């Protein structure tokens, strides 16, 4: 058993000293796709920010590749974070750059790879996400689904060992969402990568996740495989997986 790629030990995270999540213990192993689930506002995106080095935890520690992420000097932390990739909820493509330049940015900034090889790598990565031949397009001229796929291409251009995705399929039509799910699975095959996916799309969770962790009331309320969770005796977890509203809706007519 190798050490987990990412480990949260007693982490509390939140803003301005007010924790959204408290006492979180979580380990992500190499090669798995883990879904972080929960209703809107349950703190899953906040935890993701803490995992990706953007928001220091209020308590506890985050071990990335076995090293304490927030105790390292900045240079070492950046070196560690370069082995990860993040797909942001709002794709965060640079609007002043073309599609190819967006994807090539980490290569240009962080490596000494020669230009013809960069062009080839970008071409291959865009072919992998189904955007072949659109290299020169302005990133502002892409559709929502194309932007998400471009964001995945950019996050994975350095072959990261660990990829964080914040709601990669939210707001997309089912066909495109399924395409993105298939793409993530394909990436796992190509990169031999590990994925942490924040989502609340049930279809997506069933399609890609090996394991899921569910958050509510500032804590983890359930963890396990999708099959286990959907048969959970916990009412809240069961309701989430079976789309049952918290309280029966009042009828309009009396």
């Amino acid at each position, binding site marked *: 058993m190798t050490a987990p790629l990412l480990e949260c030990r007693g982490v509390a995270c939140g803003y301005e000293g007010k924790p959204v999540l408290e006492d979180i213990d979580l380990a992500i192993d190499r090669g798995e796709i883990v879904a972080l689930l929960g209703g809107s506002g349950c703190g899953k995106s906040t935890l993701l920010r803490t995992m990706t080095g953007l928001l220091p935890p209020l308590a506890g520690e985050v071990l990335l590749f076995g090293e304490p992420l927030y105790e390292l000097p900045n240079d070492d932390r950046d070196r560690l974070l370069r082995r990860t990739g993040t797909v942001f909820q709002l794709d965060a493509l640079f609007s002043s750059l073309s599609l190819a330049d967006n994807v090539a940015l980490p290569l240009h900034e962080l490596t000494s*790879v*020669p230009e013809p*090889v960069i*062009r080839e790598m970008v071409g*291959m990565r865009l*072919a992998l996400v189904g955007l072949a*031949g659109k290299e020169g397009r302005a990133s*502002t001229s892409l559709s929502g689904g194309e932007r998400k796929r471009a964001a995945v291409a950019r996050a994975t251009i350095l072959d990261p060992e660990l990829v964080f995705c914040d709601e990669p399929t939210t707001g997309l039509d089912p066909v495109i969402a399924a395409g993105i799910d298939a793409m993530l699975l394909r990436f796992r095959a190509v990169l031999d990568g590990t994925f942490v996916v924040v989502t609340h799309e049930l279809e997506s969770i069933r399609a890609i996740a090996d394991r899921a962790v569910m958050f509510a009331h500032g804590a983890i309320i359930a963890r396990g495989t999708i099959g286990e969770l959907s048969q959970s005796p916990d009412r809240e977890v069961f309701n989430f997986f079976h789309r049952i509203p918290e309280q029966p809706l009042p009828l309009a007519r009396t």
Partner: protein
Amino acid sequence: MHEAAITVERTGGSAVVHLHGDLVVASAREIYQTLRAVARGREVEHVVLDFGDVGRIDSSGIAIVSVVGKELERQGKQLELTALRAAHRAAFELVPKSTDQPPAERAPGALERIGDRVYGTRGNVGSLLGLMADVARQSLAVMTGKRRLPAASVISQISRMGVDALFIVGLLSLLIGMTTAFQAVTQLQRIGAGVFVADMVGVSMVRELAPLMTAVILTGRTGAAIAAELGTMKVRSEVDALAAMGVNPVRFLVVPRMIAITLVVPALTLIAMFVGMLGGMIVAGIELEMPAVAFWSRMIARVDLGDYVHGIGKSFVFAWIIGLAGCHLGIHGGRDASSVGSATTRTVVASIFFIIVVDAVFATVSTMTRYP
């Protein structure tokens, strides 16, 4: 992980390249350069890449092999990969081939660029005229009571554009008045006409300096803010949200700003005129020991209502230039982050340009017609 190394063996027309270590981003430059040199060798017809001693291979390694393969193909040479392990083979198979990029479009020539600019300008002028018509129409609808004006918005705009700018406009006008007076005193004293400093400061402040300085300050302060604010709203689809709700964006966003700036610029100009005169009076008192009463009575005798009409009249035109430039460039800007910056810059440059042009036209016409 061990350092990548490369050894080349040549036998006649074929070159065997033995790759050692990991083919990863860190070693990409060295490996690519060596392979390219081998591929370009004139006597080489056939290149064999030996993967027997290769460890890990990442996207950059695959891309290097692909680029070198394409280069060899162009030269009619052959590439062969040998001793691939299963993991390597899988890596090569999983990654789709990149398509050749379509040739870049030919850059437009000088004539095309000029034509493009002319068409662009025509479109710009068209949408500016459209905005002006819209502002007039919506203002009319508001005045006749058909549509409601967001009154709170007008008041907050006036306070932001006017009250908050009072200090800076006042301070700069005072300094300009004093500077003008210093200039006037040194020149006029030579011909023994120092007493005319009041005439000079009064006329130049009222007719030229106060309207111009106020307009330039408000261009930088208010025009830029309008363009940045509306530009950001456009980027965040807030303008579209208004239109989709059936709320006219021009009435909701542009008309309050236009009303506010129409009131604020002349008011600030008027204040600037008097503060400027005050500056002149201080300097006249110090330099010429001219009593305040004497200064003011000369001022009243020389600066007549026509001068005030000229100065204040101009300031209305300046206000509309600043407001329309900010609103037009903000609302018709692009949807990317850089468009907000460019809208702001263009607002400031265009406003100052047109303010100075209009000022020159006013000066010329009033001098030639002697009215007002």
